[in-house]
């Protein structure tokens, strides 16, 4: 499976080795009924400077994938059962706790979904951003404060130095998310993982935050961004490439153009069809993918999507399709699109 990703340069002047390579990642959670495989054999690459979207419904394993990169899976019950996560060829899963601390915040930083709870309520924001600096840089407190102020100004906190002494509850949701971004970027990480950074915000704030992230990326650090979201609109606006996940597996990978204009996987198609179109008919019911996501404990034995797929065949129910390239860096996990069994209808 690794080989297929080497060709996934997809229009980037990619260096010989991608910045981050995730290989055959498998994360299990011990639950009452046994072992739940939340992420099952996920592999993808992240090039330097790229914005990669990971899309999927709730429970598709996208957040768990992101958390595993920083090894933040709560253990127990969770466990990274196997796989490799290579940053510059170094396997993060083999690092010691101390070495991992050097990676966290410094090389790879993370923004969380809920800015309400992701800031410590008992510290003022100045202390929180400053602490992020002091954790990785050997600088004086005054210097750290200055850097914190600069960063807070960059993320658009008005009169940042004055607001250093304010507490999280004195900020609005969008402002808090800006503080989170400042905390994440203050050490100039090479990868920024944003786990649904805009889900808890209202729509106008959402686009502001996304614009801010992209702007900071372009102007400042050129950090790669992994954007986890269930919002295809967000992906279309911000990402270069997208990974579509379902049932703990990658179903389709491609550039944003490929995913949106030339989606091949029935699941991706379903997701796109269920988006409201601005120019579309108004009184028509919006399309929904029939059925529900099956419980992670009783995933179908064949294709994960076979219980809800409109084009399901007998083969789909028994045999798991492999992720294969259908051209130009686009990968799909579907029997119907395999070259030998190319269906007439599609």
């Amino acid at each position: 499976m690794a080989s297929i990703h080497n060709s996934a340069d997809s229009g980037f002047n990619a260096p010989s080795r991608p910045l981050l390579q995730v290989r055959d990642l498998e994360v299990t959670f011990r639950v009452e009924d046994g072992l739940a495989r939340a992420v099952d054999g996920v592999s993808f690459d992240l090039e330097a400077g790229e914005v990669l979207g990971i899309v999927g419904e709730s429970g598709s394993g996208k957040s768990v994938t992101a958390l595993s990169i920083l090894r933040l899976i709560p253990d127990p019950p969770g466990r990274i059962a196997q796989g490799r996560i290579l940053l510059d060829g170094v396997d993060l899963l083999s690092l010691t706790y101390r070495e991992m601390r050097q990676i966290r915040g410094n090389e790879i930083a993370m923004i969380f979904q809920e800015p309400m709870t992701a800031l410590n309520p008992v510290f003022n924001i100045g202390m929180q951003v400053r602490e992020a600096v002091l954790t990785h840089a050997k600088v004086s407190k005054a210097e750290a404060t200055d850097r914190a102020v600069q960063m807070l100004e960059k993320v658009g906190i008005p009169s940042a130095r004055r607001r250093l002494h304010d507490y999280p509850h004195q900020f609005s949701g969008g402002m808090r998310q800006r503080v989170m971004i400042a905390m994440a970027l203050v050490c100039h990480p090479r990868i920024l993982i944003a786990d649904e950074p805009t889900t808890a915000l209202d729509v106008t704030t959402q686009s502001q935050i996304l614009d801010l992230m992209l702007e900071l990326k372009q102007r400042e650090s050129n950090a790669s961004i992994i954007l986890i979201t269930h919002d295809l609109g967000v992906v279309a606006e911000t990402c270069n490439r997208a990974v579509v996940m379902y049932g703990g597996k990658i179903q389709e990978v491609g550039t944003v153009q490929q995913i949106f204009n030339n989606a091949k996987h029935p699941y991706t198609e379903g997701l796109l069809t269920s988006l409201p179109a601005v120019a579309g008919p108004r009184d028509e019911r919006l399309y929904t993918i029939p059925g529900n996501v099956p419980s992670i404990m009783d995933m179908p034995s064949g294709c994960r999507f076979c219980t809800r797929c409109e084009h399901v065949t007998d083969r789909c129910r028994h045999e798991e399709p492999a992720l294969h390239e259908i051209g130009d860096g686009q990968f799909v996990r579907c029997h119907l699109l395999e070259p030998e069994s190319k269906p007439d209808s599609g």
Partner: protein
Amino acid sequence: MGYRTSRSSSQVTSSTPKTDSDSHAGDHRSLSPLQLRAKRFRRLKRGYYSFVLLTSFYGLSFFLPLLMNHRAILVQYNGEFYFPALASCLHDTFGLGQERVYLANTFDQISRSGQPVFGEANYRELQRTFAEEGSGNFVIMPLIPYGPNESFLDLPGAPPHPPSHLHWMGTDDRARDVMVRLTYGFRISITFALLVTVVAYTIGIVVGAVLGYFGRWVDIVGQRFVEIWGNIPFLYTVIILASILGPSFGLLTAILAAFSWVSITYYLRGEFYREKSKDYVAAAVATGEGHLTIILRHILPNALTPIITFAPFAIVSLIISLVSLDFLGYGLPAPTPSWGELLKQAKVNLRVWHLVVFPLGAMFVTLQLIVFIGEAVREAFDPKVQSRLR
């Protein structure tokens, strides 16, 4: 017109400090949650005044040897000054200086019958003698010139003596002044409760934090040890250790602390489990911070609320523990002025009203004040008020 001018002038005066504060807005500081809670606590009058009253009494009680003592504050004798009460106050209360007892022959004290007095000087007698002599020597006695362990056997009648103008709360069955003993007992009770609370909280916080933060086998194994420890019978331990080592303030403090930390770990362990699953802890981990920083700086301040709220009630229960130990006779060694010992006397002499009413009254008032403080603390820490403001 007059109304308007007065109004405009008041506007001027009120606007002056406003602009002043605006110019200082550059270094404004928002109140931390703890400061907010302290502010809210100050607004809860009953609890706040109880707190002020109790802490000032307790603070004052450190200077008790200067207020209630059989030793004089100041003796001037043949041109020299002596401070016997201050010396004993510094030594007994603050552990400073040497134990210093002025013997009677320092002042060439002679008893009424003309015999020289042996042992420590009797300052009340000395005061009277000096006044009679009119030689310029004088003695200044504390407000209440009686010591806590002094027996007043020369009072008319048999002890316990009823309240009189000399001994406002009467004397106990060994003719010692009840008021003085109650006051000294107050200091001992509160000191004891505070010490035990601090020690027990420290142990409990450390153990609970470690168990809750690391979880897994640390928690499973640690919890079993805590449970085993918590099941050691308290009273037997006190009796056995007190009979081997001899009861003392230090021993009792150590034993009670050793038995009180267990419940703290349960609170803190639970809080740590709850807090560590929150996003801000994940964010701290994702920033690359270490275990110690996360435990101490991030989780601990958020996990302390329940045990801070619980602290005043812990102090109440510790005071009661000490009283009951003293009552049973396993408490502080014999001449120490203690509430439990006074209550024991009250039980034996139920018909001597002043032995029943005053110790019980003192205990009631003190514990009630602490409960008031506890209620106010609980209310000040109640998150519901804050969530309403959000």
